[in-house]
């Protein structure tokens, strides 16, 4: 059984569970166990980790950023090195590792949830949550328009370059934001107006409800998985809140 075969509501429960763990767990050892479980689950359910290759690069850059921030700003533990105003404390590295593990769990869980379901499944899930279809159908619209809008922005940048706009260094890119962004914004507003008109002419929003070619049904294993995950979330939250009362 692949991850994509599960009901989107089961994936949502998994996502909430992982976010819950990443936020409430404080030790690197426990976070490592959660991350290993997450990677194993991904490997078992999808059969490959190839799709997460790009994520490793992102997480590496992010990890570097967290490490630099902790080395500069952490003031916990004992002072182990000082060079001018730069002071490095003993807790900087453990805190950076904890931060990187938390970030990894969140990013991996997000990619699991949002890349394993089709836009139609998300729409159907929102319909099941009693969201009106006029709003639920916007998921499909955003997925359809994302690559189109990216292509449009690149074509605007190319047009401006052809007119002599320099886009080589970070400073050039900064100066190039306005000449590329404003035409992009105005074209997008015009596109939104045209798309809305086309959708209304095809009957969008004419009736309060509509039918779909497929529907979502919770299977026994979905119910078992959702119940199990909700139980774990409730127990972990209760164990955190009860000592405070």
């Amino acid at each position: 059984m692949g991850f994509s075969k599960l009901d989107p509501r089961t994936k949502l429960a998994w996502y909430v569970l992982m976010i819950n763990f990443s936020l409430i767990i404080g030790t690197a050892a426990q976070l490592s166990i959660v991350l290993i479980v997450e990677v194993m689950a991904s490997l078992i359910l999808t059969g490959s980790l190839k799709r997460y290759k790009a994520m490793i690069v992102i997480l590496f850059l992010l990890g570097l950023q967290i490490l630099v921030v902790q080395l500069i700003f952490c003031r916990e533990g004992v002072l182990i090195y000082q060079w001018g105003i730069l002071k490095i404390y003993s807790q900087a590295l453990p805190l950076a590792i904890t931060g990187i593990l938390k970030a990894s769990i969140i990013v991996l869980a997000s990619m699991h949830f949002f890349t394993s379901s089709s836009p139609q499944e998300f729409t159907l899930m929102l319909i099941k949550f009693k969201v009106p279809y006029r709003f639920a159908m916007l998921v499909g619209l955003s997925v359809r328009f994302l690559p189109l809008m990216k292509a449009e922005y690149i074509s605007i940048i190319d047009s401006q370059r052809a007119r002599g706009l320099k886009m080589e260094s970070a400073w050039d890119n900064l100066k190039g934001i306005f000449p590329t962004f404003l035409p992009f914004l105005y074209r997008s507003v015009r596109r939104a107006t045209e798309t809305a008109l086309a959708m209304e002419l095809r009957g969008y929003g004419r009736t309060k409800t509509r039918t779909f070619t497929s529907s979502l049904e919770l299977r026994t294993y979905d119910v078992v998985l959702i119940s199990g995950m909700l139980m774990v979330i409730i127990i972990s939250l209760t164990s955190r809140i009860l000592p405070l009362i």
Partner: protein
Amino acid sequence: MNEKLFRTDTKALVGSVIIGIVMLIMMQVTGRIDAILDPTLLLLNGTCWAFFTGLIVLMYRQPAGIIAGVVEAVVAMATGYSPLGFFFLFANVIGSIVYSLISGRLSMEKLSHHIWAMLGTAVSGNLCVMVGLIYVFHLDWKIALLSSSLTTFVGTIGAGILTKSVYGSLQKSALL
């Protein structure tokens, strides 16, 4: 229904998604520039976020502001753009609602009105990001507060001026 706060026609709903995608693309562009120029402060990124949050509310009201914010946060999470994506969800929604509530009470014809509305948005949004900085990055709360305060200050001034200018030109162009 209060027309200054709500608008649920198709143009507003579709516009929210499309401008939400524009917001996402511009956030990624400014994020990359920030990563080179000011990796820990994200001043440009913060200004861009505040500008779009305000502009979408002015153009399409609510729930368009919330929808655009959710689109931006969800794609940020799905692409692994930032581990704070989960907190962006709250920042975008709360920031947008705050902007609506403030702009609904003002005529939004003066620059000061835009600055006030932007101040509310930037403070509430950056507060959510600050929680993310503390819980995910394990930053000391004083450092997180300093970082968020700087982003709020720059975002309020920069995005306030930009929103007035761009919204004014959009109104003149009759595109809305």
